[in-house]
């Protein structure tokens, strides 16, 4: 029986392994040092690697990212932590204008191998500023890679890949999954390649394209549909930029019906991009429009009653699947 650990421990394991493997890798962020991080992810790093490889910073998100860019110019591989993904906006300029454009404006002569880790997502009584899903802003910006693991295997494998990648990678770890997702992890030097989706469940009647905490919702909906004789294929994107078009197209070819499910808001969420791309490039494979199940265009309320009203759930997914199949 393979060793099973939590999503949170998988992230920590990736950090330890990469920092042992390459002494140019270092971590910086608020409370990452002696405290071990707001969620305990960096626990033990400071003890083993010391202050300057697990560095407590002031509350200065812009400086945290800028310092990371500067260090990367001298060959380092910083892993910057945003305490909550919502705070990433405080360092937005350094990400989208500094890091994302560095290679392009330097005539291709350099790259910017930084990782920005950001705990995202809701359903954790987080309210407006501890629940957001900011992926669209970064998928939208050329020059960045964006990953969003849903399992401990992918959490560890994608973080290792992100650290080894020469580009700026926004690593979105879903806080709802920290202790709820448990499973095996890659060992040794095995990584999960960036840009590759995973088929979580095979099916031939409809495809659900999703990621992060919504994968479990999709699987729950698929189980229910199976009871009605409908086989739903669930694709976990794992990487959002660049997203695995080939995997989505291959599934579309089988099922002819696609639903995109994401916890992010509807307008200009990844579903809009996936739907437009499928229309442009694989229109003839469609037997129905691409439907989307998403958060409404709303902020994230704190009240449990209100938040459950907004979050996509298996009921909403099955309802949309039935509409999709009725076409």
């Amino acid at each position, binding site marked *: 029986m393979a060793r099973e650990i939590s999503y949170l421990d998988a992230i920590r394991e990736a950090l330890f392994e990469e920092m042992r493997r390459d002494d140019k890798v270092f971590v910086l962020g608020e409370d990452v040092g002696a405290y071990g991080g707001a969620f305990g992810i960096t626990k033990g790093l400071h003890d083993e690697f010391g202050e*300057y490889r697990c560095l407590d*910073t*002031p509350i*200065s998100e*812009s*400086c945290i*990212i*800028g*310092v*990371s*860019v*500067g*260090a*990367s*110019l*001298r060959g*380092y591989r*910083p892993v910057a932590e945003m305490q909550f993904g919502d705070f990433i906006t405080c360092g937005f*300029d*350094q990400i989208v*204008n*500094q890091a994302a*454009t560095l*290679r*392009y*404006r*330097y*005539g*291709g*002569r*350099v*790259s910017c191998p930084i990782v920005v880790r950001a705990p995202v997502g809701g359903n954790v009584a987080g309210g407006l500023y501890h629940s957001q899903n900011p992926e669209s802003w970064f998928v939208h910006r*050329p*020059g960045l*890679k964006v990953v969003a693991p849903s399992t401990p295997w992918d959490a560890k494998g994608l973080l290792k890949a992100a650290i080894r990648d*020469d*580009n700026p990678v926004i690593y979105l770890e879903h806080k709802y999954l920290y202790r709820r997702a448990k499973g095996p992890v890659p060992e040794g030097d095995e990584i999960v390649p960036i840009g590759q989706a995973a088929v979580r469940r095979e099916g031939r009647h409809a495809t659900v394209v999703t990621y992060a905490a919504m994968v479990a919702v999709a699987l729950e909906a698929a189980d229910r549909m199976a009871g009605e004789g409908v086989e739903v294929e669930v694709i976990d994107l794992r990487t959002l930029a660049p997203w695995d078009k080939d995997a989505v197209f291959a599934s579309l070819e089988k099922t002819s019906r696609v639903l995109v499910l994401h916890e992010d808001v509807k307008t200009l969420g990844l579903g809009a991009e996936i739907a437009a791309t499928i229309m442009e490039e694989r229109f003839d494979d469609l037997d129905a429009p691409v439907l989307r199940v998403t958060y409404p265009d709303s902020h994230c309320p704190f009240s449990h009653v209100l938040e459950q009203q907004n979050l996509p759930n298996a009921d909403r997914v099955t309802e949309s699947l039935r509409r999709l199949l009725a076409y």
Partner: protein
Amino acid sequence: MPSIKRYKFKLSTEQLLEMLYWLKLIRSFDERLSILVRQGRVRSGVYSGIGQEAIVVGTCYGLRPEDYICPLHRDLGTFLMKGVSPGVMMAQMYAKATGLSKGRDSALHSGVPELGIFGNTSMLGANTPVAAGLALTFKVEQRDNVVLAYFGEGASNTGDVHEAMNFAGVHKLPLVFICENNIYSYSVPIEKSMAIEDVADRAGGYGFDGVSINGNDVLAVYQSTQGAIARARAGDGPTLVECKTYRWHGHSEHDKPFYRTTDEEAMWKARDPLPTFSAYLRSQSLLNDDIMMGIEERVRTEIDAAVKFAEDSPEPSPADAASDMLA
């Protein structure tokens, strides 16, 4: 610690004349750019440094190759002094394929890590956290190299500069902050930007020294910068060197600075750093008409060659318009 304004330095005749050469070269480069803009041969992106050359020369003279500079948008001369040829810089201004950005960006938004040059974005002040990251790596490696981070008095009010200075103070980074106070941020006069007179006064708030000096006296700039650099190399942390100066042209070449008075402009032009320095050299019998003509001839030849190189250089390839987002 003794005031850096009294730092003891010695420069040979050759070195002093070399400083004069740089002042002349940088002035001529900017004057030529101004003409080229009026002729429509350089489209835009010119932020003239005419009037502020003593800061460029005084801060850059004597830097080691591995020392890093993070200049501001008006400091084209720093690129030349750090080793980029006039031809390549002119090609950069022409947005030719032979420029630093391969035509993708103009002016100073591209750098050369091998020469220790960081080219910032247009977000003023955003270079300072990056400078802090570079300096952090020098400290961690226990190297005695330094980083110079440049910004105007306007940019000194950005959050990034505050965060970077604070971070540099906490970690006593080998980082010299050079503030070029030319009393206007585009059209906004200093009294609308700041409640205090001297940017240097802020340094104490970050735990280090700040000095305010005559930015139009190249030897005063050299003296204070070398004093600050000596401190940084010795591990004594950052210093803020505020250089009072004035830009002769508008913010950009398209700006006719009607918001200033001709009296004020005349007063500052009378303090032109170039004749001030050459008068000093003549008074010490280090400079005569023959030597001056030799320098001016050399400068003219180099600028003409740079323009020819830029004009003869190819336009960038269309393939370069949307490539090099990622490594």
